[in-house]
């Protein structure tokens, strides 16, 4: 019991320090997950088995994973700048927190000296055995004494879901064309009926940023992804095309005559 406490306590505090002082946000998330798992072990060691499992499943498993997902969206490489924007802010913060910590620890220490705090805990064997187990005991309170708060918590969850949708779900202004519509559009024009050219069809490249060539040797602009064209990061193949064309004409005089006429 004591060994469990010390191991988990040291690891949790290490996780806490790691979280606060990591440069990269993803590392912070992982340190926090370490802390949470250690806390779960501490819960189980304190006769809160249900809570320990829920901590792993809900907190570490759902909440921390959500953090990691959002970090992936925002940018895995995001790291804080270390430049202080308000001078002395860092020092003042650390001083304030140390003061708070000293205060709380003193109070806890004082409390253990006085008779008001049970140094020997009552323990939960009685409470757990009362209803036939930890889960049953919590169930009795959840659906008995605290049933109103339990029902109102649903309002919280609805708000969260609604809010996430409102802020993050992009509504479409125009209707999405259906498959039949898209098919008809494609077949109506002989240029697209056989399907659009895939990018990079030129014999020397198969990259997405290299345009395809049409049968007459010209470059097919619509074979490139729109985003790359907008950014201007596509591969410019005109020079290559010109060189190869010139070589072709040089090696085949009949074609060159056609070209000239």
């Amino acid at each position, binding site marked *: 019991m004591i060994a469990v406490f010390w191991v988990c306590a040291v690891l949790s505090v290490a996780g806490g320090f790691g979280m606060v002082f990591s440069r990269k946000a993803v590392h912070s998330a992982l340190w926090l997950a370490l802390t949470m798992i250690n806390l779960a072990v501490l819960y189980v060691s304190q006769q809160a088995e249900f809570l320990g499992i829920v901590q792993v499943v809900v907190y570490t498993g759902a909440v921390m994973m959500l953090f990691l997902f959002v970090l992936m969206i925002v940018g895995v490489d995001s790291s804080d700048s270390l430049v202080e924007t308000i001078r002395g802010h860092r020092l003042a913060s650390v001083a304030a927190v140390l003061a708070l910590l000293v*205060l709380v620890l003193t109070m806890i220490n004082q409390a253990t000296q006085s008779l008001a705090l049970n140094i020997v805990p009552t323990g939960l064997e009685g409470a757990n055995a009362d209803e036939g187990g930890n889960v049953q005991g919590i169930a009795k309170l959840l659906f*008995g004494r605290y049933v*109103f708060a339990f029902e109102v918590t649903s309002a919280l969850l609805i708000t969260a879901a609604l809010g996430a949708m409102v802020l993050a779900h992009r509504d479409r202004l125009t209707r999405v064309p259906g498959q039949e519509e898209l098919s008809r559009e494609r077949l109506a024009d002989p240029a697209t009926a056989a399907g659009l050219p895939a990018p990079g069809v030129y014999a020397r490249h198969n990259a997405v940023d290299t345009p395809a060539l049409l049968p007459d040797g010209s470059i097919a602009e619509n074979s490139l992804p729109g985003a790359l064209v907008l950014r201007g990061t596509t591969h410019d193949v005109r020079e290559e095309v010109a060189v190869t064309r010139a070589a072709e004409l040089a090696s085949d005089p009949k074609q060159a005559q056609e070209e000239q006429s």
Partner: protein
Amino acid sequence: MGVQLPFPTPQIEYSLLLPVLVILGAAVVSVLIEAVAAESLRRTLQPLLAFGSLAIALAGCVGLWDQRQVVAQGALVVDGPTVILQGTLLILAVLGALLMMESRVDPAGDPFAARASTIPGSADERGFGARRQTEVWPLFLFAVGGMLMFPAANDLLTAFIALEVFSLPLYLLTGMARRRRLLSQEAALKYFVLGAFSSAVFLFGSALIYAATGSLDFAGIADAVSADPTSGLLLSAGVALLLAGMLFKVGAAPFHQWSPDVYQGAPTALTAFMSAATKVAAFGALLRVMFVALGGAAWDWQPAVAVIAGLSMLVGAITAVVQSDIKRVLAYSSVAHAGFILTGVLAASPKGLSGSLVYLVAYGFVTLAAFGLLTVVRSPAGEATDVQQWAGLAKKSPVTASVFSLLLLTMAGLPLTSGFTAKFAAWSAAWGGWQTGVVVIGAVSSTIAAAFYLRIIVSMWFSEGDDAVVVALPGLGTRTVVGVGVASAVVFGVAPQLLLGLVDGVGVFLR
């Protein structure tokens, strides 16, 4: 093995819980309407549902006038102060909803963004144009539901849940302004981070109080405190942290840092509702916790509250002088008002309770009307909130200028206005004994505040104005809100007994 069957059915007194249940039920129906109805139908149906449910809840609340009972298995209390606070909150909610519906002052539409998920300045955003984000209505109703529960909560768990239920929708709504969206989103982030921080502090304080007393409900805590007055530093630490968490919500210094930014960035209709209703709900809960649960340990928290009250009053008044944005001026003055209300809390007596309640009611209507009036003064870019843009307003619209002057003077505490009644009630409770010092600080702060209010009033009436700033003609909703504010300022000032008698008659907290 297993729970003893038959499991006793928990007893819920539905008639006594009518206001809360109606609002939360309407919020859920509102979400269903969002899912099912077409946008054109939602535009009219959602506000209708909101107003209907608020009316029914208000009727239910008035019906609870004489009830004194602990309900819902000890989670909530229905007593005099609960009825007053819930009634005030419901009326403020109706006024806030009227402001949220206003679509005449802004040619672009209502105060909320057409689609909060679009990127500000994008073609997408322009494409949605004047459409409405009707999800604000269920969020609004959830916020009101949480606010109704918070002052009625009888244990720390229910109080924490209620706190979160009303805070989360407000964080979301703050980021959904139609104009100046980047500012609005930033305000939402700030509000959220600091709000989450204060909730965590509240929770840790509750945990320490539970560790010291062994009980989560207020009666149990009060018993433990009175049984062992030397319960010592663990209880004090818990009380300090709990107090810090709650003072954040009411916006008292030094926990007020969020309020100017959030009030400035949020859509003004929401700021109006937030500034009034959040204070009423949070102070109601603060009063209940301090008086019922921790009344026996009053000497523990009174000095701290005295310092915070004094600090709020001074910081609010002094910082407001240098602000250049009218919304921030009003935000800092509401910090000062929080300090005045805390003076009533300080008294830790029934007189203090009624003084604080009187102040909350009087202040709520006036501040909601003041923020509501801000929406009508506009420039081509949107609302004209710079103080200099308000100069010379009297020439453009004498009505607006005189109403705003009256509201400012009420907030300063001019005699024959509700502001004076409120200050008198709060201060007389604290007069006598060592708390008198705080009252003196309050008087000083009032004087400073009056000075800069007068500066604004003088600039409105006697300075040259900017031609680009016009006063838009608001719809019936905004006019009603401002009218109610002015009426309350005048009526409760000229006939203070109406308000004082009402509050005195409800008595004290039920244990």
